């Protein structure tokens, strides 16, 4: 590991340690009741207690999130490709997509329960629905962002549509597709949780509902902690694939388009 990134990891770890330590200290000093804000040690204990159970719930949420996410990636990129390659369809598809995006997914969740029952499927659908839009928008903008000179070069060589698509459009679009996926994966988790809130008996969202009903705030915190951990791991995985798949794309900073956060 290069010295700079080691330094970065150290800095981050130290910040986290200080934060957790001051949280613990404040809880003890001010004697805050555990049902209001539990100390980190209580949350950790709660996590350790029934870790088998939590592992199962976490796994369910990961499953729903990734399933919804991959569906969104598959359908999102395909829709973007259709929009870009067949411009005549754009005028119809784009407004439809926008309307679909403007429907609040939280409002749709109870309906999905009626249609698809209490299983994992409606959760996957909601995760898919919220993750879909950023992928379509980013992929479409990526696929359309080919340098015009490259397209000229392609037509001068009489490249087929297929060649133009695979040799020019797809590689040009990859950085933007990845930024879309990064946004989408964080949304997919929210989608899965919304699904679990509305109905079901498994998953971290369900666990949070149960904890709330029982005023078991430490459990709720434990579930939230696990959720965040899932989110960070999934996000990190996408950044890892980004690094492997598009090494030529060197983002200039974490806040620029396609920049990497981790």
């Amino acid at each position: 590991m290069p010295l700079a990134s080691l330094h970065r990891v150290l800095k981050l770890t130290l910040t986290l340690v200080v934060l957790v330590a001051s949280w613990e200290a404040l809880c003890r000093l001010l004697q805050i009741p555990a049902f209001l804000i539990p100390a980190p040690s209580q949350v950790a204990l709660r996590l350790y207690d029934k870790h088998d159970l939590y592992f199962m719930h976490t796994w369910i949420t990961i499953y729903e999130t990734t399933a919804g996410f991959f569906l969104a990636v598959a359908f999102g990129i395909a829709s973007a490709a259709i929009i870009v390659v067949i411009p005549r369809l754009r005028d119809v598809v784009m407004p439809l997509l926008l309307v679909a995006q403007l429907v609040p997914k939280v409002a749709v969740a109870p309906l999905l329960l009626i249609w698809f029952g209490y299983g994992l499927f409606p959760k996957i659908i909601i995760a898919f629905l919220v993750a879909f839009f950023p992928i379509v928008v980013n992929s479409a903008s990526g696929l359309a962002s080919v340098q015009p000179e490259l397209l000229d070069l392609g037509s001068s060589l009489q490249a087929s549509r297929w060649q133009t698509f695979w040799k020019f459009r797809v590689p040009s679009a990859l950085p933007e597709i990845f930024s879309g996926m990064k946004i989408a994966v964080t949304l997919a988790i929210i989608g899965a949780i919304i699904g679990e809130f509305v109905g079901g008996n498994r998953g971290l969202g369900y666990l949070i509902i149960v904890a709330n009903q029982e005023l078991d705030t430490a459990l709720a915190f434990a579930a939230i902690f696990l959720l965040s951990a899932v989110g960070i791991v999934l996000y990190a995985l996408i950044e890892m694939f980004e690094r492997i798949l598009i090494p030529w794309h060197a983002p200039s900073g974490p806040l620029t388009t396609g920049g990497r956060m981790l």
Partner: protein
Amino acid sequence: MRARAAIEIADLRKTYAIADCEIPALDGVSFRIEPGEFVSVLGPSGCGKTTVLRIVAGLTVKTSGSVEVDGVPVTGPQRKIGLVFQVPALMKWRTALENVLLPAEILGLDRAASRVRAQELLELVGLSEFASRYPRELSGGMQQRVAIARALAHDPAILLLDEPFSALDMMTRNQLNIELLRIWSERQKTSLLVTHSIPEAIFLSDRIVVLGPRPARILDVVTVSLPRPRDPSVRVSLSFMQIVDRIGRLVGLEYI
């Protein structure tokens, strides 16, 4: 009967329709380029000289007139043309060598033979050591050399260069002028260069088509009678300066 021209343009007109306005870009342009000849189209910015090149390349549709390449009327894009743009337009995700291989891939040429050829072309543009580098690892001038190698990759009969060096700094530009002259003398491709640099046009060309401001008409076709092979030092010779002055006066600039 004259021998068949490599490019023959007669009374070429182009009008762009923007909103309800018809904007004339080319107003009756005629000239011909002999096989193996290097001709420049020179004119002020935005005069429509790039339009001439794009019509020859079959990328832009003419309004009227006739354009023939090798005696065949141009109706669309044609593979006997190699293109170099103002920007290198390299694929960031490919190495220099892979960029040069692109035309062969699209045309479905033999892989092994194209590889050998691409290597040779990188050597021709002086980049054989950079074959496996990515564009971002190359300077602007180097990237443009890769673009020149790529334009030659499918051995086109004609090379069309659209202000290829105007985005580069003066020193790199001079260097690449010398390189292009050398490449041209080694390959003898019929070349059409669009530029707004008078010295660049004179140094490289056999003849210079001087266009006036939009809508473009030909002001004059200047024959550059400097002997070949040309040494870079020709650019400070008296005869060179006289041509600079003559073209400068044509386009309304006073040089002397």
